[in-house]
């Protein structure tokens, strides 16, 4: 597979790039398609602790998932999934409930053998070389992982004792705001405190790669910010981070690469900048007299745009909204002697993009 990075120039959020099919920088993939072709380059400078280019080559990828298939009985949990993680970067795996995120991550952690396809972590087989990877990879499970009767500090100290050069346990406890619960047993910690302890357990051994399964689920806004900051610090320090999340904003904020998976398949892949560009398909809304003749406006707008009047007196322009679109609209209004009311440009939220990719119906 040729390295896609650098081969394409994708559009940016300002929407000034050419309108090629890949101009969104965020390609929806046909089912079962490899991630490589859809990988968008960084359209904005992304911090990269390694100093080198963020480009990937199979040889030095921190994680390689290649055509992975995982089933539970009749349930196809992961369906020919492929992606790679470059060292020193943050990768977010995004997807609705049951998409196969945990299954994928846990296969990388060596808990399950791939039913088909191949997984490599730091160049090793996560099952065969489990012992060696145990020291190099930090793991935060989606839930559990600690003795319910163990105190928070004690649990973390035990994890530290299993590693050669652990972080300062007190420092980590303080950093994660667990100072007041050092003597509280795990079962009495709040859900968010349990998550934070679990994160600390993943980091205490100074790993070079961490898998964080929903690190911010159930956290309050303060704790979520601390976690975000911490993940930024990990990247600065050169740690490779693979995390799962349900939140587009989190993926956008933290990740160099985002892989959206749905029903076990890669739905889309790209950089957050690519995601933001996808958001450039905006909407303009305005109110005016009902039943305007929109033919001339439609003709004047760039190709691919449409104007409709969903309810009398309220109009919606959809399509790729760029500054010229707005200029065309207001020129047309002026020509009609029309003063549009409550005219506004709506940038589709990233959440909408996510919902569009993965559908709106509730997952089982």
């Amino acid at each position: 597979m040729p390295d896609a990075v650098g081969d394409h120039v994708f559009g940016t959020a300002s929407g000034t790039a050419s309108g090629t099919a890949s101009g969104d920088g965020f390609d929806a993939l046909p089912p079962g398609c490899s991630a490589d072709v859809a990988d968008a380059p960084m359209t904005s400078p992304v911090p990269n602790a390694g100093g080198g280019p963020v480009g990937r080559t199979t040889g030095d990828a921190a994680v390689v998932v290649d055509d992975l298939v995982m089933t539970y009985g009749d349930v196809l949990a992961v369906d020919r999934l492929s992606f790679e993680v470059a060292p020193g970067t943050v990768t977010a795996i995004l997807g609705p409930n049951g998409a196969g995120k945990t299954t994928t991550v846990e296969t990388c952690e060596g808990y399950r053998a791939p039913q088909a396809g191949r997984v490599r972590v730091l160049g090793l087989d996560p099952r065969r070389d489990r012992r060696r990877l145990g020291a190099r990879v930090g793991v935060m499970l989606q839930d559990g992982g600690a003795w319910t009767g163990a105190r928070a500090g004690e649990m973390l100290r035990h994890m530290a004792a299993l590693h050669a050069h652990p972080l300062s346990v007190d420092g980590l406890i303080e950093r994660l705001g667990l100072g007041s619960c050092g003597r509280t047993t795990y079962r009495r910690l709040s859900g968010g405190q349990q998550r934070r302890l679990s994160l600390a357990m993943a980091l205490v051994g100074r790993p070079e790669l961490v898998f964080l399964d929903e690190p911010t689920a159930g956290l309050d806004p303060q704790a979520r910010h601390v976690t975000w900051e911490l993940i930024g610090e990990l990247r600065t320090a050169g740690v490779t981070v693979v995390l799962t999340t349900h939140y587009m904003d989190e993926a956008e904020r933290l990740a160099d690469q985002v892989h959206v998976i749905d029903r076990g398949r890669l739905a889309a892949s790209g950089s957050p900048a690519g995601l933001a560009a996808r958001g450039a398909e905006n909407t303009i809304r305005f109110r005016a007299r009902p039943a305007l003749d929109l033919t001339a406006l439609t003709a004047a707008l760039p190709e691919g745009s449409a104007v409709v009047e969903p309810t009398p007196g309220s109009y919606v322009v959809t399509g790729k909204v760029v500054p010229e679109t707005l200029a065309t609209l207001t020129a047309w209004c002026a020509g009609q002697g029309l003063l549009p009311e409550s005219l506004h440009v709506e940038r589709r939220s990233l959440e909408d993009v996510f919902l569009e990719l993965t559908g709106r119906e509730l997952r089982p």
Partner: protein
Amino acid sequence: MTRTLSYAPAPGAAPLHRMVRSQALMETRLLLRNGEQLVLAVAIPLLVLVGGVQAASVVALGDARPVDVLTPGVMALAVLSTSFTSVAIATGFERRYGVLKRLGASPLPRTALLAGKVAAVLLVETLQLSLVAAVGLGLGWQPHGGLTAALGAVLLVVLGTAAFCALGLLMAGILRAEATLAAANLVYLLLLAGGGVVVPIDRYPDSAAAHLGLLPSGALAEGLRDVLSGAGLATGPVLVLLVWAVAAAALTARTFRWE
């Protein structure tokens, strides 16, 4: 004041002995912190010992002095409670709550995890047996056979611990955590009542007595009663415990699920 932490990677496993020690101390603290398990491990054995000596006129234990018969049996009971019941229940819940899973992704090898577990059990048993011995001596227990007998007793306890630990892990590996909790307590009670633990095997009906010595509980208790009465270390119980330990360990290795 916030210290700045450097997350710069510095991966590496701790030396094996440090991992095993940390695991053993962690498990010891958890065992000692668990109230219900302490009742099984300490309160019930001491109750049986003191109660049994008081009621010896009612329950015929044979020609020997009741306290000399009861103390070794209660020691076997203490070993049973920790190495079988506590290990089975704790391991069942370790799996349920993902502790085994999480440790499986740490540098701790599985053998070190088991070593830590066994070390924790031996530590707790040392406390239990010291307590039982102290109370027994207080009630007039007179062990015979000197240092040789003591060493024989230690050997029996270690073998019994190995057999019971393996059986406890076997149960925890097959059943769900709740089922393990129920079954492990039930087995404890059944063996306490009819496993040749507290009441010497020759006090049981002949048909039962023939088989009780083949149970790990009966073998451990009978062996302890023999050796601590000065009759020497019998090979029968040693062999029985050895077979149980090896067989259960082999089965456990095949069936145990870590997640």
